[in-house]
């Protein structure tokens, strides 16, 4: 406890933000309506951008401001907007993708967080406290994102889960390692952008082939008894 109080305010702020991002991940898990999921995802994007900016201010890396900007535009605005637009065009904006057993899901999620923390513990010997916790949290974000992918049935919400997962990674990159080299950041951002576009394209293909965006309906290609 005392160790935490010794940290500077900025670092405390960063950790607080990390906790908030974690909360948003939980929220993503909990949301049942598509539109709400997308909105929560946007919030996560903004928080991520804010964190990046703080880190940049803290250690004064100019290129981190750029990546903060990128994050804000991509994760905060562009991608949610694209998703919403496509969802509206597909007419699934108001669809409900409810979770089967919320209680158990929540339990598993929190177990995951603990697990991630235990995994990240040994890193402690390496660096000062903040990073260790940040790594643990981003690991938790990644895991929660995957978990969301596993339990969600709608293609759109799966994409959101995928993006959330990437957010977790970004958070690690920013908060734990003060950002990756610029060229990598740009490349990753480009990939993400293209990915979202392609996702959009494939939504329509799926919509054409099967009358819904329910991924459970995509089970023609299996090796089981036919």
């Amino acid at each position, binding site marked *: 406890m005392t160790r935490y109080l010794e940290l500077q305010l900025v670092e405390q702020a960063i950790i607080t933000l990390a906790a908030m991002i974690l909360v948003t991940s939980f929220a993503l898990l909990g949301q049942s309506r598509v539109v709400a999921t997308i909105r929560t995802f946007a919030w996560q994007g903004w928080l991520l951008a804010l964190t990046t900016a703080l880190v940049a201010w803290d250690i004064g890396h100019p290129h981190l401001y750029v990546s903060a900007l990128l994050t804000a535009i991509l994760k905060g605005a562009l991608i949610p907007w694209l998703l919403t637009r496509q969802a509206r065009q597909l007419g699934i904006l108001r669809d409900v993708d409810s979770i089967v057993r919320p209680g158990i899901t929540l339990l598993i999620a929190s177990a995951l967080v603990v697990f991630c923390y*235990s*995994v990240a513990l*040994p890193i402690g010997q390496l660096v000062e406290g903040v990073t260790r916790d940040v790594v643990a949290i981003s690991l938790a974000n990644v895991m929660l994102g995957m978990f969301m992918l596993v*339990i969600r049935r709608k293609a759109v919400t799966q994409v959101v889960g995928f993006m959330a997962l990437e957010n977790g990674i970004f958070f690690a990159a920013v908060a734990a390692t003060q950002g990756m080299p610029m060229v990598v950041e740009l490349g990753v951002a480009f990939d993400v952008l293209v990915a979202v576009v392609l996702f959009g394209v494939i939504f329509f293909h799926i919509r054409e082939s099967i009358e819904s965006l329910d991924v459970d309906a995509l089970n023609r290609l*299996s*090796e089981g*008894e036919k």
Partner: protein
Amino acid sequence: MRDSLVLYLTAATLSSAIGSSVSALLADRYPWILRLAAFPLLGLSGLLSLAIAALVLLEGVSLAIELPVGLPWLYWHLRLDALAGFFLGIIGIITAIVSIYGPSYTRKYQQSPYSLSALGFFTGLFVAGMQLVVLADDAFAFMMAWEVMSVASYFLVAYEHHQAANRRAAFLYLLMAQIGAVLILLCFGIFGSFSTDFTFDAFRVAQLDPLWASLAFALALAGFGMKAGLVPLHVWLPEAHPVAPSHISALMSGVMLKVAVYGFIRLLFDFLGPLRWEWGLVLLAVGSLTAIYGVLYALVETDLKRVLAYSSVENIGIIFICLGFSVTYLANGAPILGVLGLIAALYHVLNHALFKSLLFLNAGAVIERSHEHDLEAMGGLLRRMPWTGLFFLLGCLSISALPPFNGFVSEWLTFQTALQATALESGVLRAVIPIVAAILALTGALAAACFVRVYGTSFLGQPRSRHVRRAREVRTGMLVAQACLAGLCVLTGLLPTMVVALIGTVTESLLHQPIAAATRHGWLWLTPIGPETASYSAPLIMLGVLMALVAWFCVWVWLRKSRKSNPITRRDPWDCGFGGLTPRMQYTATAFAMPFEQVFRHTWRLKTQVTREMDADLPTKPKDLEYQLEVEDRVWLWFYAPVGKWVLNASRHVARIQTGHLRHYLAYSFLTLIVLLWLIS
């Protein structure tokens, strides 16, 4: 000078085998190429290998070269010693004779939908592969040649690929060849891990500790046994031999099985350091099982070529029994007897190569002319194909181990070896060896019965089907080939002393133990241990048999005049006064084997099905009676079928993980991640 000559000859024989296969590629466009280029080249290659063998065995020439192919740190080593020379000679003889037989035999494929090019190409490749196997002197070259041999013969087995049965047989064959090859590879791997590199020279000096040595022995036995056809690894043989073209069956059964035996001998007597008598016991057990099992199945099969295939299994069993004797004696410090056992084994290798190829060539002639595989449909062929009949008879006499033919000599030598069991200290071995000898005796007698059955139902009696009634003698080429082999069978039976002397050079170079006693008393007398112990004079016995024939001839000449005045009258055979003997009243092959089925009834899994239809007005008198007999290989039911089922079940269970649901897949990846993280933390 002579060494360089051998080098050139080796190069020539390999290149002419390859050349034959390459030239055959054009045979689809110009069929004459097969007759005028491919087969002559193949025959040339055979003769050249025969010449090499002669140089090696008679002149004691040897050869060791490296070809700049293979792995960069392990070029192909080729080496030619007495053992290799002996087997190269066997390959050469049969190849040469088959290439006499081939041109006229393969004519029947010119109208067929099958490609002549494929036939010629893979035949040449097959022969080249076998030659390379016996020449190879490092593990990599050996495996390469070995697999080329297997693959080429696979394509030949699958040659008439329009029948599904042939495809199944080829599949089974290739599968077992593959498994066997990997086993051999692992065996070499053991040697490799005990020595510096993968050359056979390194293997020879490698010191394996007992456990690994026994493991290597087991792997070799399984690997080479799978190719040679040891029970229970024999199942591909009776499937593959019948479906291949007959001259190929002759090559496969006559030569390829021997190449497998070569590999085993090379590994056992050349690489594996001190022999252990337990191995001898294992060999004796496996050999006896194989021999008795093979002959019993040969006795009830009714497909001509299947019978021959099972009899190959039997003969391989006999060879392994001889090897078992040899190992047992060598391990117990009786080198002379060990050498004698090895000589018997090699002698039988030679004999089986000769008479089994002969029989397969005969079978090819019979099947081509009668369009029948089934003994139950044949009969009376002797009067329609007299020459083929004569050669087949000689083949049957040889394989039935009857004096004065060659099969008898090797069996006699084996018995002589077995009878020296009193020389051993261990009472167990002294008790076991005679029992094995007893099994061997039973095998020989059953083989005689089996071939009486085959010959009697196919060549004697009256034809049982229309095709057979129309059968005519085959073309000259095929007859000449059969004649050569029959002549060789008689010759190797007639002059055992010389053959033993020849094989003696092989065993001496392998075990460094001369056997002077066997041939000391001149070409007329074969005395393996000593004249007072046992002696055999094939020429004199042959003389006696000839005198019997001469007597017949004299009577014939003497009665010629009187026959003019009153010729031999021909009557109907005795029909119990009912009249009208028809071919259907003859004893069939199945009926002939019936007493044996009664005696050894627990050996086979026989499905007998009797349908009888009673006469309406006289209910006790059957109007129509039909008896069907199906033989199933027990090993198949006990071993292979379950394994196959197991694999299919396993694959069905495994396939369940591919559910088709994306979320399941994501869950797999998720869980994998968690498990791995948990593992490392």
